């Protein structure tokens, strides 16, 4: 395995914004991307003249299937008035956004561009659930995994069954991750489900009473999460609240050559590490309790950055399902194998814990518009590192952060390390 190379010159993030994530019948991918671009522009401290942007990389999984629209990159570039700049769509399933960031980093580090816009966008809610499920399934190995009847919840549920067998975790442990992510999302105005599970449950009770139906007998959120009518099983052991939703949304970040960062802000966020890896189908992996591509990608990113897992203060990781966050926390080296679920239970990954994970609310509660998620990770990192995360701000100095973005069951993983120097 070749060691990671280094960046030929430094890359800095000088702006980051996102649209609201949710279900927006009247908005298409273009509308969402324009919104994200406008939000990003507002965050550039010294202002942005968009004409300085030289190239665009857009993460998008499947506008082809979701909107019957392929070739989305020049369309989004045109929507923000930036043709004839080179525009490239990046597709690596749910890792599309993170891999788009990597392309932007490489374009700048190589000297090919000084100012690059990296975006991510997905419009999923125009299709019904069955159609969305089938579109998402195309991220798996169609001839060799799908005939077995697997769905995406199913793949991660199978990983959970192996993890439970190996480490004694019970499915209830996963609920801690969902509770934490909803607690965080309740403080994120852009979140699709910006509500705690407590509030959600109370809303369900109130709605039943209002309709004249017998009130559900849930006293605590644990009653609710254990009840099939509140939290139905989707693919055992995973239930509704273990699964990220179907979402519309977009995010955009502005990357520049480090030596020009001062033209945009005096407080840039430097991207100092990047790692990416691929892998074959889930069934080819000897150990189903880990995602090998995540271990490789993070090792490369840490090596390039010259830091270790211990140095990372906060992380946005790919919680497409609760079990994915548990496994990620171990793959990234934050906790030993088999300890991730205990760390979540002990509150170590909460905002006030030793290793805050997914302060944005995660994919689970913030939303998961597939191509946008990897870029939205960077938006949260931007806000947290610059002290702009409002009510969900993590305390203290955040000089190092990490984003982890996974495609399918881990056939792609991309990790970036960010540094704030001033």
């Amino acid at each position, binding site marked *: 395995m070749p060691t990671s190379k280094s960046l030929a010159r430094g890359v800095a993030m000088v702006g980051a914004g996102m649209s609201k994530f949710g279900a927006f019948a009247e908005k298409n991918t273009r509308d969402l991307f324009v919104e994200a671009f406008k939000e990003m522009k507002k965050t550039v401290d010294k202002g942005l003249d968009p004409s300085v942007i030289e190239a665009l990389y857009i993460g998008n999984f499947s506008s082809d299937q979701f909107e019957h629209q392929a070739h989305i990159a020049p369309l989004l570039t045109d929507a923000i008035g930036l043709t004839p700049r080179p525009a490239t769509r990046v597709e690596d399933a749910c890792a599309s956004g993170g891999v788009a960031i990597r392309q932007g980093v490489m374009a700048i580090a190589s000297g090919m561009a000084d100012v690059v816009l990296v975006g991510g966008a997905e419009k999923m809610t125009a299709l019904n659930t*069955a159609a969305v*499920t*089938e579109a998402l*399934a195309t991220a798996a190995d169609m*001839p*060799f*995994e*799908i*005939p*077995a*009847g*697997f*769905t995406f*919840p*199913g*793949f991660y*549920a*199978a*990983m*959970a*069954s*192996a993890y439970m*067998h190996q480490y004694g975790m019970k*499915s209830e442990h996963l609920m801690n991750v969902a509770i934490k992510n909803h607690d965080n999302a309740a403080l994120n105005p852009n979140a699709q489900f910006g509500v705690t599970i407590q509030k959600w449950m109370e809303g369900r009770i109130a709605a039943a009473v209002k309709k004249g139906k017998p009130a559900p007998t849930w006293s605590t959120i644990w009653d609710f999460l254990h009840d099939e009518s509140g939290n*139905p*099983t*989707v*693919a*055992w*052991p*995973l239930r509704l609240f273990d699964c990220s939703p179907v979402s519309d949304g977009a995010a955009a970040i502005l990357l520049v050559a480090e030596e020009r960062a001062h033209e945009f802000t005096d407080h840039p966020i430097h991207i100092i590490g990047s790692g990416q890896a691929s892998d*074959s*189908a*889930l*069934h*080819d*992996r000897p150990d*189903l309790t880990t995602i090998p591509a995540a271990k490789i990608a993070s090792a490369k990113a840490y090596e390039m950055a010259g830091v270790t897992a211990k140095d990372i203060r906060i992380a946005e990781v790919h919680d497409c399902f609760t079990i994915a966050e548990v496994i990620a926390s171990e793959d990234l080296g934050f906790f030993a194998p088999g300890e991730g679920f205990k760390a979540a239970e002990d509150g170590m990954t909460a905002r006030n814990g030793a290793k805050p994970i997914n302060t944005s609310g995660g994919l689970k509660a913030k939303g998961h518009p597939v191509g946008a998620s990897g870029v939205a990770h960077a938006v949260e990192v931007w806000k947290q590192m610059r002290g702009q995360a409002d009510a969900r701000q993590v305390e203290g100095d955040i000089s190092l952060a990490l984003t982890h973005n996974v495609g399918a069951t881990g056939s792609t993983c991309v990790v970036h390390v960010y540094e704030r120097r001033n």
Partner: protein
Amino acid sequence: MSEETTVVRPFSAAAFDQYIAEHKLTAARCTKCGGMYVPPRAICPKCHSEAMEWVGTSGKGKLCAFTVILSGPTFMIEQGFDRKNPYISGIVELEEGARISARITGLDMSKPAEIKIGTPLNVDFVEFGDGEAKKTYLAFKAEDTV
């Protein structure tokens, strides 16, 4: 050195499906390093050799991971599966070492927490549809089923 004959199928998904339709679970083996792969590969991921051969398998394996799916894709719904009639998708490790995704039959789905990783399984082939529309799906059945 064996000669290429017109009988050797390419190491492709289409050829694999053809074997499945014939109720055979056939693997691709690398003649250079012995690596065995099912589903098949045309190029060995271990040693990068292109000298592959088809070999039979015993059909015996064990359960590595599984899930009970209550909300499946259209082609499973068409076969009669739904929340009240779920099915199991799993990952099986063959006796020969290779692993594959497959339907798992013969297990009690009403108590998923009691299903044991490591349960011995035997290859099975599930057919659905008639004539031109008939499809054969790879499955593994738990031994000693009631």
